[in-house]
């Protein structure tokens, strides 16, 4: 996914001299190609995220197309107010990239882990929130963000989970993408980011009639499509490497409870910080987001809802 990111920013910047890449002193090695091929469009703003995001707003007002890169724990979390007031308020075409979302920085602790970012950003008017699952969705999301000329927060999570698509999908802003077909009336898994892959594996092995959807667009999201999915499903399981408060699980639940009530299991971080240090898989286990724990939760939920 990181190679796809690098390739895409180089492609966008070469095609449009107004594209500027701003980084808050992050992205070691990631920007080698960009710095080589588009050096005049690269700005290291230093360890000063608030100023970086404010500057991006000023550059956008002056006609540029800034892409702001930071770790998700800092962009958007540290700069929510700059995003709200300086960028979203005026619908400025700034692409905000939050890398390492979820538990990617499993060894570094709470400061670098980011499981609140969707909740914080999706409440900001005019701001779109994208959460690609693999390199192909990333390319589609970035191209749509560039073309749409609206402020977008693009969340990049664990980048080496493997592909969920065979190639760049025909994506449309707001539309969920089917990554595994299933039977009408069975289970619908709706996942975003790193957990799309997990949902596909669980469904493929244990619930062959279940349909699996990837949601690369958290906001806007196609209400009609979500309603149809919910109306056609026995139960819905939503998975995300993000808090269950305010993330994709909330989005689906909010729509369903108004338009197509269905029982929904929200799999995500249970309103808590990580306790321990360890590898990525270890952290997923700590939060009950590893494959086995999710299988168990789905099993228990299906048992409960069968009655």
């Amino acid at each position, binding site marked *: 996914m990181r190679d796809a990111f690098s390739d895409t920013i180089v492609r966008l910047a070469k095609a449009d001299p107004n594209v500027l890449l701003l980084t808050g002193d992050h992205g070691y090695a990631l920007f080698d190609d960009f710095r080589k091929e588009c050096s005049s469009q690269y700005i290291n*703003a230093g360890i*000063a995220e608030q*100023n970086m995001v*404010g500057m991006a707003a000023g550059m956008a007002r002056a*006609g540029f197309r800034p892409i702001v890169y930071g770790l998700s724990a800092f962009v958007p979390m540290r700069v929510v107010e*700059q995003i709200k*007031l300086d960028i979203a308020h005026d619908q400025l075409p700034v692409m905000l990239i939050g890398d390492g979302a979820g538990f990617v920085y499993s060894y570094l602790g709470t400061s670098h882990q980011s499981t609140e970012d969707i909740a914080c950003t999706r409440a900001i008017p005019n701001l779109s929130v994208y959460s690609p699952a693999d390199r192909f969705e990333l390319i589609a999301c970035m191209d749509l963000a560039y073309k749409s000329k609206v402020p977008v927060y693009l969340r990049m999570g664990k980048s080496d989970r493997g592909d969920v698509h065979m190639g760049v999908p025909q994506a449309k802003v707001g539309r969920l993408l089917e990554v595994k077909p299933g039977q009408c009336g069975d289970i619908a898994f709706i996942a975003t980011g790193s957990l799309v892959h997990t949902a596909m594996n669980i469904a493929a092995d244990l619930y062959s009639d279940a349909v699996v959807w990837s949601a690369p667009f958290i906001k806007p999201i196609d209400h009609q499509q979500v309603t149809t999915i919910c109306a056609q499903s026995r139960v819905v399981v939503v998975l995300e490497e993000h808090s269950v408060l305010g993330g994709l699980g909330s989005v689906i639940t909010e729509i369903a409870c108004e338009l197509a009530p269905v029982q929904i299991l929200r799999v995500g971080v249970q309103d808590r910080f990580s306790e321990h240090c360890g590898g990525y898989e270890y952290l997923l286990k700590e939060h009950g987001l590893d494959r086995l724990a999710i299988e168990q939760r789905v099993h228990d939920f299906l048992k409960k809802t069968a009655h």
Partner: protein
Amino acid sequence: MNASTPNFSAKALRKTVLDMAYAGSAVHIGCAFSIIELLVVLYRNHLHYPGNDPLAANRDYFVLSKGHGVMAQYACMRELGWLHNEAFTGYFSDGSLLKGLSDSRIPGMEVTSGSLGHGFSVGVGMAMGAKLRSTEQKTYVLVGDGEINEGPIWEGALFAAQHRLKNFMVIVDENGFQAMGKTQEVLNLGNIQSKFESFGFEAVTIDGHDEIAIDNAITQFWASNSTAPKALIAKTVKGKGVPFMEHNNIWHYTRLDQHTYMQALEAVAGNAL
């Protein structure tokens, strides 16, 4: 936009501020009065808006980062023909256009301020953009001395100096007060000029109510051979122009009643600034 001849007299602008503050029962009069002469000189002599269009692509950028002084900017924008009288007589009425703090959706205002410390960075971004395009555009950011408590100001100052943004000027309205008291007693800023100098700015301190001094300082800055960004430290008086408001921080929050309004109008009318 067409403008009749603007009357950028400090006296006329203060009267506009008083009229609208009284009409809207609005606060922050002292904050507006300390920057009147700075705005007079900027709008009359320096800010370049081709075709008098506040959205002209090659305009100079004026960022009022201390949004609390917004009534002074509204008064100037009326003189330019960008705002009409109804917006002033109906200030703060339901559904009206102008808010108590600046809103960037109104042409002529570059930021939505009120949360302090934002406009400086936006202005640095604009100046960087102008530098990248090699245009002649200048960026002016007006901040309050209380406002520079905010961290992003100093982040932006580092960036402006690092990238030699000689087209960028911060103007500090040093009126010595912030919302809850004297700046010295809240977070003492010490010598603001030397602070900006130590961050790599070319800086000068002047009387912020002396239009000639302001004009000369700005002219000299742009004539300078230095590639450093500029800091104009303007020593001002909060509430300037109305003796009972001057140096009296209650006029950060106090509303005019009929009596104080009439008194203030008299003071402004008799005050040959």
